[in-house]
């Protein structure tokens, strides 16, 4: 289930984050980030880590769908949904846990 009402502020924050992390100016919130090929494995991981740090959320890659990252608006919705799923304090606790698999 996903909401589709991400705020303009959130959309703008994500555009700034993409410009900072990926050196990429996105022309519109609906521009397809995948068809242009600018997102690849490493840049996607960096973007998701950036979203997690900036918004204090956790976005497990395994739960991610391709359409979740297709545009800035889709990313804004992804962030919105995970803000609900995992509040900041929980995310911090998760991040502070000892590492290892």
């Amino acid at each position, binding site marked *: 289930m996903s909401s589709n009402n991400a705020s303009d502020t959130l959309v703008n924050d994500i555009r700034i984050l993409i410009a900072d992390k990926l*050196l990429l100016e996105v022309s519109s919130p609906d521009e397809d980030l995948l068809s242009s*090929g600018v997102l*690849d*494995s490493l840049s996607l*991981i*960096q973007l998701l880590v950036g979203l997690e740090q900036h918004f204090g959320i956790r976005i497990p890659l*395994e739960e991610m769908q391709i359409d979740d990252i297709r545009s800035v608006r889709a990313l804004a919705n992804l962030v919105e949904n995970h803000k609900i799923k995992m509040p900041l304090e929980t995310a911090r606790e998760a*991040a502070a846990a000892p*590492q*290892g698999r």
Partner: protein
Amino acid sequence: MKVLGISGFEGAMAFKKKHWPGLDEREYRISQGHDSAAALVVDGVPVAAAAEERFNRRKHSGDFPIGAIEYCLQHAGLDLDDVDVLAHSFDYSPYRRAYSLNPITRELYDNVFSRNALLALAGKYLPGFPEERIRQVKHHLAHAASAYYTSGWDECLVMVIDGMGEAQSASAYLGRHGELSSIAEISAMDSIGVLYSLITLHLGFDFNSDEYKIMGLAPYGDPSRFRSFFQEAVQLRSDGSIRIPVLGLNRTREERENYLATRRCLSERLLPARHPDDDITDEHRDLAAALQECLDQTMLHICGHFGSATGMRRLTLAGGVALNCTANGHLLRSGLFDELYIQPAAGDDGSALGAALYWAGQVGEVSNVRFPAPFLGPAHCIQEIESALASFDAEIEVRRCQTLEESCALAAQLIADGRVIAWYRGRMEFGPRALGHRSILADPGHPEMRDRINAMVKMREAFRPFAPAVSIEQVHRWFDVPPGTELPYMIATVNVRTEFRAELPAITHVNGSARVQTVSPLDNAAFHTLLKAAGRTTGREMVLNTSFNVKGQPIVNTPREAIETFLGTGIEYLFLENVLIGRRGANVGFAENVPETVEAFR
């Protein structure tokens, strides 16, 4: 518990060759999983470790380390069935989705990086080994474990800095009470290691291989010409992280695979790419100097920040960038930390040891004592030596010494006479440096020695300096360090005392530094005996120590390889344990040059 750690990705370069045919051979090294190795940890103690290149004789090989595994098991008298855990030092599984964005990266993941690919290799090389005993460890966590669990410290900052792990280029961990906790990570898109390697490639050398040569070239240059480029290119941020936007210029799959846009930028902003056969000019030297200066500052920035943030005064390092002796030397002298320990197999061979130690740590078995000089490789018995000698009977002359002391006295006299000798003894070193068991030795006081060994013995670039091995008792006499300073791994530069620089031309770099190895009787006894003997013949308990190999070849492993390399080079004498070998009929034959008895020169 018996844990076998492994590193490397067998299929990585083959995958690249399949999908990007026709690249320059050097560009295929822009790939993951070189320097495969195996390491065996029994009840928390490293008992055997070796890089696969020493067995398959292909330098930096990333092939499945079956030769190294067989050696480790044979050394410990174990069967494969006895191994409780086989731990690989990469774990890409959290990133499967990210690799599925693109058909080629999906295939790379499936065929090379995935657990299924690892299981397929295990099935091929280790048939019957239970899949449930095969584990994966995040790459930087494996490096961190290799450093923390051999540091001998209960609490310290652990920094891992390399080209890249699965998606990171630097990671900060806090090691405390036997556990490692992640503090911060820097993305692989901002990798100082990748930038250093790309400029290594741009300067006509090999990516993921020749970075140490650029480090050696740097002191000949002036960093000021290109300083402003690096100040702009590598942004040091207040949170301890770094940003390297020039690495983010690559937009297409093609560009990303080989950093094409970044390399274009280097050509436009710095200088054209140098072909390996071209002369090295002042511009190249200046670029190396500016790059090294940038790395030195970046390491101080990252390590210094996390040292302050955690309050830790002890730092341990691993990852390929931690093999940069110059940057390590700056850290050592910076005052940012009271103590610095760099795990000597800091490159990816050492991540095999780290993967094993990580799992041993998970069950609380690691004793965490300071790593002695890492003689964890194979030794070869006198029967094997005699057999090798017999095969080369027509080409060599042999004299058998009765004791280590006799061998050392003879070797020390040859060194004092200006001879270049190979010294092969005991178990092979783990990690890239020869520390006195597979070494070429000479007198550091001979002015022409550096050029002679570079040209005639090692057949390598003339600009490269050599390192000194010095007794722990004399390190402070020749070098600008306090008495008793232990630098047993030849992994950090220090300054040669000004008054001795002219006296030590073969090991003093143009900037007055040297990559010192200190030798202690506690963990490198035979080599220490040799240095003491050299003290009696040369007045210095010091030798020039370089690895026993020629350009492009891995360090020798077996006695046969030692004799072959000896015969194929300008090395004048070879000691295989206590057997002295010379060339039959050579200009530097036994009769003229080797004293009849040890007593003759005592």
